[in-house]
């Protein structure tokens, strides 16, 4: 409403004003710019920049809340190499990522392609597809804890109908991580589906129509028109998936406590245990930086692959 009160925008009006007026306007803008970002920037400084620097410094010390703190140089990082739990949690996190990223990507893209139609029913089904996203990670975990019950859970009952004797899922060191991957994909694909849908709707219809007239079939159009056009969206989604996957914690914490037999002990879970459980905050910080490095490397590799595909 207020907008209608303002003057209609004019493109050529500034000519009657001197450059001096412009200069003061720019100075004012500068001042207000700093004023507007002052509080956000201060918070960002205190709760993002300073903590990263602190974490980096701490990772070279044996800080543990109580007792004296000494500079240990690279000792924490050296200790990591001999820490079997570090390697185990790294392996578990790698397994989770290797399963979750492709699964999450395929499900999100697949459902987006299905739902990308111009008919009325789409709205209803789009809502149904999206609804698991509303669940918190804890709620999704409690729901799946019940679904995955080996004897009375819906999943093993359903598997029984088609003659499959379902595994013990969360009670099996072989299947627990798989169960967490499936649960996570169920709980989060809706967001990425919507991002893909936004990308799909940005593809020009003429392009697809032209390909169709040229005799390209559905698969060819998907592979040679849709996928190249989705490159940017694909990059965004895979980056989000990779960053998220390496930080998996909630599901493992709630569902399995890292078990059985440490088969779902993830890197962030181990860092949490060391830092907040055993208060070995220096050691935990050094591990968190290794995780940071891993995420950067994988994001860069991902950017490389997406760029190559674009050429």
């Amino acid at each position: 409403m207020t907008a209608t009160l303002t003057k209609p925008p004019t493109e050529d009006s500034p000519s009657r004003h001197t450059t001096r007026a412009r200069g003061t306007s720019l100075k004012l803008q500068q001042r207000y710019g700093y004023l507007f970002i002052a509080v956000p920037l201060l918070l960002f400084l205190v709760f993002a920049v300073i903590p990263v620097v602190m974490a980096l410094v701490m990772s070279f010390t044996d800080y543990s809340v109580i007792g004296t703190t000494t500079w240990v140089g690279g000792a924490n990082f050296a200790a990591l190499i001999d820490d079997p739990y570090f390697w185990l949690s790294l392996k578990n996190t790698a397994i989770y990522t290797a399963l979750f990223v492709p699964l999450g990507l395929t499900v999100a893209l697949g459902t987006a392609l299905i739902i990308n139609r111009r008919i009325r029913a789409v709205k209803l089904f789009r809502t149904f597809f999206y609804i698991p996203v509303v669940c918190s990670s804890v709620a999704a975990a409690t729901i799946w804890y019940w679904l995955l019950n080996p004897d009375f859970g819906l999943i093993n009952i359903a598997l029984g109908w088609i003659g499959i004797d379902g595994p013990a899922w969360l009670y099996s060191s072989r299947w627990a991580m798989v169960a967490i991957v499936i649960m996570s994909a169920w709980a989060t694909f809706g967001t990425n589906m919507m991002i893909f849908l936004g990308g799909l709707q940005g593809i020009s219809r003429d392009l697809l129509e032209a390909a169709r007239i040229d005799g390209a079939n559905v698969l060819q159009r998907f592979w040679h028109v849709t996928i190249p056009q989705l490159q940017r969206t694909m990059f965004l989604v895979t980056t989000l998936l990779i960053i998220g996957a390496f930080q998996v914690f909630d599901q493992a914490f709630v569902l399995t406590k890292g078990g059985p037999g440490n088969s779902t002990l993830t890197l962030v879970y181990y860092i949490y245990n060391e830092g907040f459980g055993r208060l070995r905050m220096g050691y935990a910080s050094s591990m968190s930086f290794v995780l940071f490095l891993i995420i950067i490397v994988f994001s860069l590799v991902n950017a490389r692959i997406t760029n190559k595909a674009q050429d």
Partner: protein
Amino acid sequence: MTMNTTMKRRVLGDVAWYAAVIAISLVTVLPLVWTLLTSFKPAGEILSGGMDFLPRTWTFDNYVTVWQSVPFGRYFLNSTILALAGVVCNVFLGSLAGYAFAKLKFRGAKAFFAMLLASMMVPSIVTMIPTFLVLRKFPLVGGNSILGEGGSGFINSYMAVILPGAVGAFAIFMMKQFFETIPDSYAEAARLDGASEFRIFTRIYLPLAKPGMAVLAILTFQSGWNNFMWPLIVLSDPKMMTVQVGLASFMNDYETDYGPLMAGTVISMIPVLVVFLVCQRYIIEGVSHVGNK
């Protein structure tokens, strides 16, 4: 003939499409329905192994058990306060900074903004330990001396969640994107009329940004309500626990009591589910909009 076959193909395609979307909907919705129905079943029926979908006898006992055995009301209050405070702070501060980055020219703007974006790459666990210490050693708060010793600082207070989450890089990013869709010419015209920068922001751009603010508010509420790891770390006092932390610890204590556990899950989801069903158009458009940028 050809007409007939194309018709047939179209019908067949439609049938296949409906079959696919119904199957997927079953996978996404059925677990929630089953959770809801389980929460109304008596314990004996849940573990009888029977595959009755609907409860044979409907009972509210599970809800009573949850409400009596843990202070769920208190958890609800805590989560509500934290989620709403997160919404207010993020929408206000996100709009301020987003507007500045989108519409005001000032030195260093690009560098600051790049830094914000880069911070999204930092895994949250990296900053969690130092942030915990910053909050704990905050001077003159929670029994702390001016040197930050002696007390517990902001730990176990609402501020421990509100302050670090007051303005996310995502909020600034989203509002910047939104303000960029509003033409610059409004501000130029108003400046010529002698309007102050603050007035231009509050009277012209802020009202136009309402749809963007609504989407940000909804998304922030959801993520605030569903937040788990950070409240788990900084709010360990049972009186300060959030719904999510309470539900997780409830699951530990009542491992095989599926009835009360499902009842607790249902209760924990009500606020976000209501917000989603009422505002789903904004949420869905907002999410796909972010992807389009």
